[in-house]
């Protein structure tokens, strides 16, 4: 067997220097937005009991979790999702805190991905959860915060798509077909697969619900979508969902975000998980969603608390790609003590430079020649040689 001691597992990577800086800039921008609005940080462990996620099997397939066991043989997972641990925490340790509760997190999640597709299995996520509170006001706050996050990272080069899963649920529930077929219909709508959707709905086409489902993949765009959707189907609670969606959309319009937001009633991913609005964010030039969120009123119930919640997560690795400017953190001055007798003096000099905001390092090499050779190789512009006097060597003078 090959000894893999010089590589990282597929789907993971080392981050170096500028890459780290991009990530911390991206997270810093987002964290500022969160903390200034009263969201408080939580950190949950990378290892969780499998049982925490067991009820989530419908929308978080078991086979994509990394599983391991503890010393008693109990099943653990590498945390595959941020929201579920937050829900666990909320329903237990935070159960006596007043609601609404505003939380944010920033940690890695782990999900297995098929090999050789270029997908990461370790993804750094940052996101918020707003627990409790009136539904509409909470949704307005969190969707707006999502838009603010996108703007903080990429200026106006983003789009946010918005849906209310209640519309789809109202239609599909009024169609009398087996659960298995309902799931197929849902997945065809998710893929905007008109061909397959047409043929699976063919036997039911005299029903209004089926005709509406057939149009669902096409129901995306601006404000006109809601009226179109109304005409297609308004029974069984569908109308109420549309009214609600309209309110959130109009709120975003009033914030001047009308051209950034697309309504897509065919956004039916994770229909078992979400209970109200769903939204996702895209950046120009990145081929997958960067932000994803929505309302999940049933999740806390799994942990024994009946609180409505809404939140979103952002893939920090993707967001970091949009950070253009990287601050230079390379050493500007190397401080060399000519002999170790001058080390204390050199160190005081280095501290003074640091205090002035200059990145300066001690030289740990023994001779002048070695220090100069190193400065040249590493592209360090100055050496301060500390003896009785301090003499300055400058790279540009050679």
């Amino acid at each position, binding site marked *: 067997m090959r000894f893999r001691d010089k590589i990282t597992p597929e789907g993971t990577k080392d981050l170096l220097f500028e890459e780290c800086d991009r990530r911390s800039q991206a997270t810093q921008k987002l964290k500022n937005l969160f903390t200034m609005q009263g969201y408080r940080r939580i950190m949950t462990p990378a290892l969780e009991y499998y049982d925490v996620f067991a009820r989530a099997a419908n929308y978080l397939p078991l086979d994509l979790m990394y599983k391991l066991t503890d010393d008693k043989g109990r099943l653990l997972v590498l945390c595959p999702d941020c929201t579920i641990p937050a829900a666990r925490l909320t329903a237990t340790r935070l159960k006596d805190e007043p609601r609404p509760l505003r939380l944010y997190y920033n940690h890695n999640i782990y999900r297995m991905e098929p090999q050789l*597709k270029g997908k990461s299995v370790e993804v750094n996520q940052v996101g918020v959860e707003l627990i409790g509170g009136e539904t509409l006001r909470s949704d307005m706050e969190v969707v707006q915060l999502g838009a603010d996050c996108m703007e903080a990272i990429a200026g106006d080069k983003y*789009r946010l798509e918005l849906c209310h899963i209640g519309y789809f649920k109202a239609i599909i529930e009024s169609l009398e077909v087996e659960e298995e077929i309902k799931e197929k219909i849902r997945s065809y709508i998710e893929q905007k*697969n008109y*061909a*397959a959707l047409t043929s699976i709905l063919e036997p039911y086409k005299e029903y209004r619900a089926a005709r509406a489902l057939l149009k669902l993949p096409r129901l995306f765009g601006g404000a006109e979508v809601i009226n179109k959707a109304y005409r297609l189907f308004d029974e069984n609670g569908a109308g109420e969902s549309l009214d609600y969606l309209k309110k959130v959309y109009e709120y975003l319009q009033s914030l001047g975000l009308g051209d950034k937001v697309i309504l897509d009633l065919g956004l039916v991913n994770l229909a078992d998980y979400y209970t109200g609005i769903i939204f996702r964010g895209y950046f120009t030039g990145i*081929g997958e969603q960067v932000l994803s969120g929505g309302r999940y009123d049933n999740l806390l119930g799994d942990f024994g608390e009946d609180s409505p919640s809404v939140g979103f997560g952002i893939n920090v690795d993707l967001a970091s790609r949009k950070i253009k400017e990287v601050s230079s953190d390379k050493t500007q001055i190397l401080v060399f003590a000519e002999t170790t007798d001058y080390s204390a003096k050199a160190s005081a000099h280095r501290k003074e430079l640091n205090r002035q905001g200059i990145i300066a390092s001690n030289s740990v090499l023994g001779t002048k020649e070695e220090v100069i050779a190193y400065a040249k190789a590493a592209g360090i512009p100055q050496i301060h040689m500390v003896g009785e006097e301090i003499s300055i060597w400058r790279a540009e003078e050679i």
Partner: protein
Amino acid sequence: MRLALTKGRLEKNTVEMLEQLGYDCSQVKNKGRRLILPIGDGSIEVVLAKAADVVTYVENGVCDMGVVGKDTIMEKEGTFYEVTDLGFGKCRFALAAKKGTDFYKGYQTRTIASKYVNVAHSYFQEKNMDVNVVKIEGSVELAPILGLADAIVDIVETGSTLKENGLEIIEDVCQVSARLIVNIASMKLRKQEIEAFLDRIEEFVEKKKQEEEKNGI
């Protein structure tokens, strides 16, 4: 906007379709060795790639759209919108075995040879049958003849290759044809451009279908 095309027959069919829609495809037809070529007024670039790579490029968003066979989509899977059945490149997946054998008789575990291992796997999984799937890269028909496999799952057009090698179709797995796929982010970020393009294609496909039906009657 970038449109990835599966090189070969689907490329030809797609170019025909695009020309009938009024896009100038002369550069694609005289491509030489180039792999990225503008069509029409240059607002669309065609990228020529192998079928499986079309899916990869579209999924990762370096191409906004792609034309690829349903066979490749089934084998590769992935996250993208599969918006239109273009109606050309029609064939089917079939299960075939040596002539005269009763494939389903007995309880031994069967060995299935295929280029499309995922398609073969999921087909038998739906039947709740455990099978060994062996990946074959070239002429799959050889595997049952040489005794490596009990049957094959492969693309069949006319069935004459099967016949000439002493194989026969046991059953069809599913129909296959060319599909237009779209990257999920592109659909949201370049909605107008892409929708306008899709509308023209859909109209064309619909017209063609009606013509075919008329001729059929």
